């Protein structure tokens, strides 16, 4: 139980850093990626945000209906950011 508490605290701070601080501190990097996406002709800007929002809602629905399945899907999707990082 203590490990779970420590894990929860550290992981929550990890999410705070990536979802609140990094988007504000890394605007230059975000703009650079936007330019790269525009050059490649890929989805960017508001459409990309909409796509991410749709993905969050869809994954939340999967989590809610079947938690284990949602965890598996999330684990597969999270492979990209984990290995790239």
């Amino acid at each position, binding site marked *: 139980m203590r490990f779970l508490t420590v894990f*929860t605290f550290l992981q929550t701070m990890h999410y705070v850093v990536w979802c609140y601080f990094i988007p504000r501190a890394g605007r230059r990097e975000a703009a650079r990626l936007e330019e790269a996406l525009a050059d490649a002709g890929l989805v960017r800007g508001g459409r990309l945000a909409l796509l991410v929002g749709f993905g969050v809602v869809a994954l939340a629905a999967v989590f*809610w209906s079947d938690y*284990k399945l949602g965890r598996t899907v999330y684990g597969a999707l999270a492979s990209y950011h984990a*290995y*790239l990082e």
Partner: protein
Amino acid sequence: MWPYVVVEGERPVVLYSLAFAAAACLALLLALSLPLATTVFRLILFGLLHNFFELRYVLGRFGALLERPRLEALLAAITGIAAIRRPRWVSGPPPRDRRSLWPVGAGAGLGAGSTTTPALGMPARGGGRCRALARSDHVPLRRAHAPPQHRPAVLPVGMGSGRQQRRRPRSIPGPAPRLGRGYSSVDPPGRVRRTAHTGSDAGRATGRRCRGGGCAVYAASLG
């Protein structure tokens, strides 16, 4: 000077420092009062979002390192890993042992009753499942609903000598019972020894009837 340093010409660092300290206090409070519910619902709400922000920053910051052939090779390799970790139903029928999230929701405070968090001695909201989550040290992980052949042999406390207690009782006919994962072949008399589980093992062992430690370990295996 530190408190007056300006970040990107907008807000002073001191504001970010205060916000960070407040977020740390809030995270600590949540982790101590509702660790499992915080882990689960944080993953649902912000899991994919934080993946997106991480990818955006890393690709923007180190994009120069990821030129065309190297980026394609990396994407192919990670896609292979993601394909290995795909759900089983992609290549076959969906599993029947679906576990909904309602037990965690019930434990997050939807149920009645209250309990005490050992770390702070402060009350934590939640019903029976939340009580079990908060006091998982006292809940043995045990397959009470498993078939008899999967239950470990248990002798009453104080019955026979220590050597006899460590042996399997001779009165059990037939082959030795096949124990489930997570149990030792020889358990101390009168109790079931809990051994180390991976998250998925705990989830399989407990399922919907999970109590305390099983749920906690199951949720703690999340990324």
